[in-house]
């Protein structure tokens, strides 16, 4: 196996078994915060010394979550809730739920009543008039509230320097992902679509 194939296999293994990755973090004594789709301020989680963990559901039969979501709800949300109710995310310190779509708005109460207090919800509200001064101020205040909640969960203060370092790290990471995406697009013979998906999912 060449180096690219070997690396892709590693990404594939991580993407195929998020539970294993979660257990790895937890057994290492790290605190983990679940991040639902899309646009959670992961930088704040990292700045708090915790691990942001993407929740993307699974391909599975939904049973318990059907008591909360109607069948025509987005399957990603149904299966995230299903996994939550079944205890697959046990050990996570909290889940962040961005209220960016109508089904995510219902995820907030459905998670609180379905999974209950063992994993608390941190709602994430973004201003939709995001470029105005009022919109920027509102989102900033929301992020400050989330910062305080994360400080409570992690048991440590988040400094401005912590945030700056996390932003720097994420900028580097995202630049690398853009570079990978462009390179993978140029070389489909080396990186198949499922492999590309696994790289993004594992990230």
């Amino acid at each position, binding site marked *: 196996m060449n180096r690219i194939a070997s690396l892709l296999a590693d990404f594939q293994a991580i993407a195929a078994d998020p539970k294993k990755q979660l257990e790895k973090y937890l057994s290492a004594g790290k605190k983990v915060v679940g991040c639902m789709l899309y646009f959670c301020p992961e930088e704040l989680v990292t700045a708090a010394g915790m691990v942001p963990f993407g929740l993307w559901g699974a391909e599975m039969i939904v049973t318990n979550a059907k*008591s*909360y*979501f*109607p069948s*025509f*709800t987005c399957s990603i949300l149904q299966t995230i809730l299903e996994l939550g109710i079944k205890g697959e995310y046990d050990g996570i310190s909290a889940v962040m739920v961005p*209220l*960016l*779509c*109508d*089904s995510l*708005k*219902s*995820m*907030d*109460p*459905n998670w*609180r*009543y*379905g999974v209950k207090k063992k994993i608390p919800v941190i*709602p994430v*509200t973004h*201003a*939709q*008039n995001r470029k*105005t*001064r*009022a*919109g920027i*101020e*509102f989102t900033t*205040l*929301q992020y400050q509230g989330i910062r305080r909640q994360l400080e409570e969960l992690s048991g440590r203060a988040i400094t401005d320097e912590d945030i700056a370092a996390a932003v720097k790290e994420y900028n580097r990471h995202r630049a690398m992902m853009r570079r990978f995406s462009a390179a993978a697009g140029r070389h489909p013979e080396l990186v198949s679509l499922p492999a590309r998906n696994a790289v993004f999912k594992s990230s």
Partner: protein
Amino acid sequence: MTEKNTSGEKIPAKQRLKEIAEKVTREAWEAKKRGEKIGWCASNFPQEITTTMGIPVVYPENHAAAVGAKGGGQRMCEYAESMGYSSDLCSYSCINFAFTDIGECQELNIPLPDFLLCCNNICNCMIKWYENLAFKLDIPLLLIDIPRLSNFTCDDDRIRYIRAQFDDCILKLQEITGKTWDEEKFKKVMDISLRSSKAWLKAVDYAKYVPSPYSGFDIFNNMAVACVARGTEEAAEAFEQLAEEYEANVKNGITTFKGEEKYRVLFEGIACWAYLGFTYRTLRDFGINITSTIYGPAFSFLYQNVDELMAAYSYVPNCNCFEREVELRVKDAIAKKVDGAIIHMNRSCKNWSGKLYELERQLRLQAGIPTVVFDGDQCDPRAFSEAQFITRIKALIEIMEENRRKKEELNE
């Protein structure tokens, strides 16, 4: 003040309200013909802005509901699907997409807009719907973003954000329409809107009497004005007359419900406009009257000052935090002495339907009532089954009967 017709007879409030709703669309047509700029407006956009500035607007949601009630829902939804829109989208939006493309509709026509006024306190689908229109028609879109409440009350951060958008929207509307803002008129509009809201709430609350002095379906027919014209004197007067009429019905022991009120229920969700007649007749024939809906509080914006006005637009159903949504229903169900609840799992409305199963459990738990859920859609008849509706209603009646029998046994 009670208006009279040419024969000197009192015009019933129901008719006055119908005429006021029609007048809103008529005035928009007339303004359009005069060359004025007219807008399309989301149902829970702060109407205080447009009323104060005298800007004519029409409401695509109300238009879609009317098209649905008149039998055009499926045709228009299928047209939108043929354009490439998903059948999973809100049927109000699909009807509107179809109407915008065709430019006319046999059920009801409204003038095409020169600008769009969007507010997402009812759902985020509104934003994508109106962005789509703005792109297709190449016209300005003004959005007042009212974030869903995560806590029981609207905090100062939200109030400040909404108020800044309110001010920004007024400036942009002045540029678009050439009309001006008058602070004194705004205060007057606020006063009238409050008067309308209180009168509407008062009228709706007469359902606490047994039997109710009105049929619950009257709410579906009368609520349009509470949405589109509550800042006008004539709306306030018509709602006050409606409350007076219901009060008189209570005193005289009469009701607009055509049948014997054997059971009283809470109806959760938007009406199935395409099956309004069928659902009305079915419930009436079983002796079921709707005495509780969210439409009373939904269109009652109660405030004493500008900050409270901003907060009031956060307290609309679907923008509230879940616990506040539950409390509204439980209090109303108890006040209106309901025997059960009928819950509409509305395929169109992901925001409303997404939390209905837990809402159902909380209603059972906190109001102590039996509930049934039926599948349907606000405007697309393909998601509704007459047989399922009847089966669910019969099941509810069985439980309500059993509960009544047990209660009587306890009292003996």
